[in-house]
């Protein structure tokens, strides 16, 4: 055998060995890899910065926080629950931990733009299946309802959890997702198929776990505008830089017409006039929300879940007409009742909040976070101990 041929054999053997070693390291990483001193998935370790934490990392984080004899409070939902608007030392979930005391451990797994049925919800479902004492807290708003587990920036968690056999059997969810996939345009369908295939491979080879572990500890490879020149920096060196809220006088200044349109949109298409100048939830919306809950919130999780319906900031609500305000109140109340009717605790968050509690239309300041923590702590203490 010539030297050249021998080196070619060695190269091929090296590629195969390298692949096996990478899969082995990926499998190891999936069992322990998680952010240090974790408070939340701040923007620089989130899909916004093209850092897509694998599902296994979420579970590792939850389990690392949990201690025997304590109830694990998993926070899911969107940027409001993530604590956007609150500096890292003032994130509302830290205040919730203080309010709840030592019998609970709180872990904030919320992501910007996530639905209450994505990411953290799947971790809660998986841990409940395995007998852990879990309470799940997430948020939504009337038009967004429960969303669906796959799709969007946080949808990949569902496929990964599914193929890692972390989820309960739930035919209604399977059927709803199948119908949704069938309804997608070809390009989006291909994107979902690709995400799904990646999740199948992740269950075996843990390529995502390895890549994100390397990205977190050693170096990152994808440029993004949030990190710009620091894109390659190991993400464990990237601090949570969420700023303090602006002075109250400077808030709510931008995009007033657009924000007012969004605020109106929360109830505009949801309600119809009822008798005596009242408002009631339009029947189609009532049925849609009920059907969404039935097809997306696994029955196992419902008794352990608290859903918050976040209200918009008073700055905008106060600018609605009295009829619009009444419509808003009735839509929130009706939606909360639908959640309760399906066995899910639900609270409207923001009824007694003030302008200073918000940094913009939706996100809470540190003060607002403290109020939210008080509300959630009060409700969670009413939950039966798992």
């Amino acid at each position: 055998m010539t030297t050249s041929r021998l080196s070619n054999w060695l190269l091929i053997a090296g590629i195969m060995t390298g692949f096996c070693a990478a899969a082995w390291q990926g499998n190891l990483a999936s069992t322990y890899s998680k952010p240090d001193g974790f408070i939340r998935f701040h923007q620089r370790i989130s899909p916004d910065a093209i850092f897509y934490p694998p599902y296994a990392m979420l579970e590792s984080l939850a389990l690392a926080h949990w201690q025997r004899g304590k109830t694990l409070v998993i926070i899911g939902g969107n940027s409001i629950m993530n604590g956007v608007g609150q500096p890292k030392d003032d994130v509302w979930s830290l205040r919730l931990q203080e309010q709840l005391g030592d019998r609970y451990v709180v872990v904030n797994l919320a992501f910007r733009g996530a639905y209450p049925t994505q990411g953290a919800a799947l971790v809660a479902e998986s841990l409940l299946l395995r007998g852990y004492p879990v309470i799940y807290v997430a948020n939504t708003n009337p038009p967004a309802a429960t969303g669906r587990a796959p799709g969007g920036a946080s949808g990949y968690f569902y496929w990964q959890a599914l193929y890692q056999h972390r989820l309960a059997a739930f035919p209604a969810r399977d059927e709803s997702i199948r119908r949704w996939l069938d309804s997608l345009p070809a390009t989006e369908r291909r994107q979902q198929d690709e995400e799904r295939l990646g999740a199948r491979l992740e269950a075996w080879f843990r390529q995502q776990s390895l890549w994100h572990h390397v990205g977190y500890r050693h170096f990152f490879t994808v440029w993004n505008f949030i990190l710009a020149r620091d894109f390659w920096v190991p993400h464990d060196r990237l601090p949570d830089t969420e700023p303090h809220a602006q002075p109250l006088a400077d808030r709510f200044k931008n995009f007033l017409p657009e924000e007012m349109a969004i605020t109106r949109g929360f109830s505009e298409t949801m309600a119809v006039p009822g008798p005596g100048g009242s408002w009631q939830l339009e029947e189609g919306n009532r049925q849609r929300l009920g059907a969404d809950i039935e097809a997306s919130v696994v029955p196992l999780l419902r008794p352990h879940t608290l859903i918050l319906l976040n209200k918009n900031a008073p700055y905008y609500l106060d600018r609605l007409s009295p009829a619009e305000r009444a419509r808003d109140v009735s839509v929130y109340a009706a939606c909360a009742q639908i959640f309760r009717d399906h066995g899910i605790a639900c609270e409207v968050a923001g009824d007694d909040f003030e302008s200073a509690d918000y940094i913009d239309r939706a996100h809470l300041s540190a003060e607002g976070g403290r109020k939210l923590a008080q509300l959630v702590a009060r409700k969670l203490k009413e939950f039966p101990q798992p």
Partner: protein
Amino acid sequence: MIFNTYWFICFSAVFFPIYWFLFLPVLRRFWLLAGCAVFHFHFAGPAGVLPIIVIGLVAYLAGLTRWRFLCAAAIALSVAALGFYKYAQFLCVDLLGRLFPGTGALLERQLHTLHPIAAPLAISFFTFEFVHYLVEVYRGREPIRRPDDFALFAVHFPSLVAGPIKRYQDYLPDLRAGLAGVTVDDVAAGAQRIALGLVKKVVLADNLTLVINFYGPGFAGLSRGQAWLFLAALAARIVLDFSGYTDMAIGLSRLMGIRLPENFNYPYLAVSLQDFWQRWHISLTSWIRDYVYIPLGGNRHGLLRRLANGLFVFALCGLWHGPAWHFVLWGLWHGVGLVINFSYVTLLGPVGRALAGVFTRLPVLGWALTLLYVAFGWLMFFYEPAQAWAMAVKLFAFHGP
């Protein structure tokens, strides 16, 4: 990008090991054919596959008869299909619509009822390969007899999406050699080439794409230095992206023992525009030379005809990249550059000869000028003419940030 999808990774994990362990060439042949069919169907879908099957079948049968009339008719069909799927909208709306608004609007309405949403995958590459085949048969070369040979030539999956554009007289012997046996040297060379392509495409070009997409809309607000860096990123991105893809295509084919033609040869080291086009997208350049430029008369009928031919083929080359005016403009930019490149010595007399002497003695000067010329061309390639012009003005403006 198809080669770094999970689907393609799974496809490769099944396809290549079986290909290697099928020792009989006939079995390998059918496995390769099946692989090409699955690949094409997956990425093109039924609506993308059917037109290619029809045009391919016509090209194959026409070639088989060796009747020149039929070959010419099949060439016309291939070109018409390309025109219909890729350029009908452009011709009706952007060309006819501007000249004759009434007719353009009428044609556009008709088009919407007939036209599919997207052209079949890689129809430009298919058309160029079919036209090449039919022209060669028309000129008297032996046609491909075996339908499976023709099918493999047409849908050889590594080169399906972004070339290189193959020549059947080179491809078929390489195909037979690959089917007869794959050596470890082939596999090792293929793997190295794929790795090189992946680094160029995924690590470098894709990151540059993100940078360009982010800073592009705010180009007017960049400082002069940043604007020049942006231009450099634009130029680097396209060569890394395209040559990276070609590296992967060549590497994947080599894993089967089949060699594909090279498509790039360090184009940014070119010392003249003529040199650049002998190094950039070589398979397209040679195709246009052989099947458009030379039949039009090439260099044979005096300087003026040569220059006109050059401008025409480069406008066509630009249009091949996409149905939009800025691609035509990019082609003409290069056409004009080549006209100058070819003619300045003759037209400028002693001054031209002196200039040529300077370029010979200082090749770095030719290299810098060529690189600058090509880089400015990329502004036209990627942006609408008005925006490209504004960007170019900013790069050379003597005032401003």
